[in-house]
């Protein structure tokens, strides 16, 4: 392995190449552009389409209570909710966790999020109208608001971090999981599970589903900054189900290079939150490992090795790289 002296705050391109680090230009030019057809992008950019595909393929997703398409529907909101005590409002085309509101309890007048913040009914309907007007959508286009089942985080992760929902990201190349990580919200990330916003991350061993390493704000860590709970050595529950679901989704989306985000629900097990056609490269930092050689190895395989039943061997090979 190459050495870097303490004062040097950069790495040479050759050093990154030796480590097999995938850069953003290479990701875009060599993997996303050739592997992901533009026409299939709406399948991941619009969450209600992703959910429909998951539903049809038997992949667990949070129940959709309602799809709010026009401002008129906003008024019927209380009707739609019925006697449900908790739910999530999210924009269909949102990105980076923007515009998601998790309501944990309510009395029809006041609504409380999981972190205890209070919203009035008027504020809630305003939020939905804002989603419809495209405030949180990728390109500012008018959007839909999804009202769905609230996922209760599995206790394995609930113990590690307070506030926010930890999620598991699997990056798949040609339908084969190439790398996975768990993302743990912190106070610094304000409950968001994005590494660049300050969340903590850790790599996941593809074969066993056990976490290792740990990173926060681009620095290596061993314990969660808020709770002090160790991040490494955590066994992800239902890991095999999760991997299977990710592969099935990748096949159904027909996108060659995707990231799938899961949340492990206390009762449902792993459910798909969303898929991403341009998954970030921070997963390499969380795994302290480059994606390059793994993608290269997958690319070098003959077609018969991509059959669903053979992929496990391939995953094991990839995990060893």
């Amino acid at each position, binding site marked *: *392995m*190459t*050495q*870097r*002296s*303490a004062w*040097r*705050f*950069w*790495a*040479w*391109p050759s*050093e*990154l190449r030796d*480590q097999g*680090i995938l*850069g*953003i*230009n*290479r990701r875009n*030019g*060599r993997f996303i552009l*050739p592997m992901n057809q533009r026409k299939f992008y709406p399948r991941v950019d619009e969450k209600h389409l992703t959910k429909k595909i998951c539903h049809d393929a038997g992949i667990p997703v949070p129940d959709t209570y309602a799809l709010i398409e026009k401002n008129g529907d906003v008024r019927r909101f209380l009707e739609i909710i019925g006697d449900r005590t908790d739910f999530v409002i999210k924009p269909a085309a949102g990105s980076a966790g*923007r515009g998601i509101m998790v309501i944990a309890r309510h009395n029809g007048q006041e609504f409380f999020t999981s972190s205890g913040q209070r919203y009035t009914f008027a*504020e809630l309907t*305003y939020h939905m*109208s*804002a989603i419809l*007007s*495209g*405030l949180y959508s990728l390109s*500012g286009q008018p959007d839909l608001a999804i009202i769905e089942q609230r996922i209760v985080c599995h206790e394995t992760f609930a113990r590690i971090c307070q506030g926010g929902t930890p999620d598991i990201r699997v990056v798949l190349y040609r339908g084969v999981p190439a790398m996975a990580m768990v993302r743990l919200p912190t106070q610094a990330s304000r409950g968001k599970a994005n590494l660049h*916003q300050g969340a903590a991350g850790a790599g996941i061993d593809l074969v066993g589903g056990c976490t290792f390493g740990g990173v926060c704000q*681009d*620095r*290596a860590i061993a314990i969660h900054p808020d709770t002090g709970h160790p991040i490494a050595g955590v066994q992800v529950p239902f890991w095999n189900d999760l991997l299977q679901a990710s592969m099935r989704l990748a096949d159904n989306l027909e996108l060659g290079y995707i990231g799938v985000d899961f949340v492990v629900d206390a009762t449902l097990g792993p459910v798909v939150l969303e898929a991403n056609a341009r998954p970030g490269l921070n997963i*390499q*930092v969380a795994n*302290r*490992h*480059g994606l390059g050689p793994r993608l290269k190895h997958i690319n070098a395989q003959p077609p018969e090795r991509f059959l669903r039943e053979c992929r496990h061997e391939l995953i094991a090979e990839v995990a060893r790289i």
Partner: protein
Amino acid sequence: MNARSSTTWVIALLLLLGAASIALRIKYKPEPLTHPGESVWKLTYFASFHARKAGAELQMAYPETTRHSTVLESPTTPPELDVVPYRPIRAASRKDLTLRTKKAGQVDCRVEFKLHLSRRADWRPDSVDKPLTARDQSKYLDKGRGIEVGHPSVAETVNRLRDGNPKPQELVERLFEHCLRSIIPGGDAASNDGTEALVRGTGSTLGRARAFTALCRACKVPARLVTGFEIKLGNTFRPHTWVEVFIDGRWQSYDLENGFARELDYNFVPVRRDGVELIRAVNPLDTVDVAATDLVTRYTIEKLPAPPVATDPGTEGLLQIFDLRRLPVKLHEPIKVILILPLGALFTAFVRTIVGIRTFGTFTPTLLALAFVFNDLKSGICVFVVVLITGFISRTLLDRLKLLLVPRLGIVLTLVVMLMVLGVAVINHFHWNPHKGETVLLPMVILTNLVERFFVTSEEDNLSEAGRLMGTTMAMAFVIYLLLNFKNLGTLMFDFPELHFFTVIVLILMGRYTGYRVSELIRFRDLVQRDPPPQE
């Protein structure tokens, strides 16, 4: 054919196209062109005089290059006279042409100038009047030939018109109107003296101009006579005298004969300032008596056949489409700037895909820079900063109203527009933007989006991230601004727009670049092992 080989072919094709079109353009470089509304004139000075002996000198004032007129070539001088290099004598301007006789006796000579006149062109776009020196100041306030500043009738008129203590501009206009109304043109027979014209209520062109000058000077407003030509066809062609008045750092022209105030028509070409004679007999430095006598002068003007006109359709074939110089002059400057714009895009692509610096919006820096090119930079930045800060504060307050996206953006846009108009009014009031009379109109939609994005980023990430992005946006806008302001580059692109074939080539190469971004060398640095701590 895969993407790689197609790229190679496209690049080869573009290289060929670019090289071929540049080669063709260099080979068939077309003639200089004029434009509709432009004309070329031949102005001739005739002078006949008696030289007592060899070495008598004659000084001729040279037509000035103004915004709308320019001297095309150096003048043709008579062979029987020598051209004397410039010497600082008497009231000689550096541009004056001094001729010296080779022998004694009667001399008849002529000097020809070729003038290019255009209503639309601007040959001195950035011309600024120099501030008056103390010497000029006293000269243009003091009495002169036919200009008796201290005469009682001048003082009396001034006292009457100065009623209400008006500002210089208004005062000068009152004086001008007074001279127009109460000094009747008396033809050549009337007096050339300013005071006489004022007292009698009639005067020659010169007498009236002198009277107006005396009145201005008596009001402590610097004024001077200007003699030149009104370039037009007609039976009589002779020098014409008008007055220039120095107000608020600018010389303004007033012509009593034609009634022009503040600015003259485009076809008035000044030749001599602070004087009346365009051709003068002067004494050389070393002697006092060797001079030309019995000087008689005459001037003629002749309109030359119009050169090929730029936008005559179909005169020289379709290929002329590619000659951008044929476009109206007014369009040249904007087109030059627009032609540099792709280089701004090139720079943007470089910064984003090779360096990896993020900004607000992909082309926002480029569009901002473009806006600053067409405005005065200093006042532009002032307005920009004020609009941004006030916009941000209002946007923060607006957030409490919980308004939907489009109406809210509409409000921010309205605020931006109002702030900008206010900014323009403030700048105008305090004369911070004296040289360019134009207003500061920044792209309002871009500013609106900038305010919105700045606010959203500061809310979703934090203020320092938003500030950082604003910093990179501004820094990039500044670099692109420098690029766009690079006049030689603009002229080059204007003459050879096909150079952009090469811009496309570079962009293609960048688009195929799959190496690391500079920012990634830092971002992923921890994935490269550090040195173990030194062992003792």
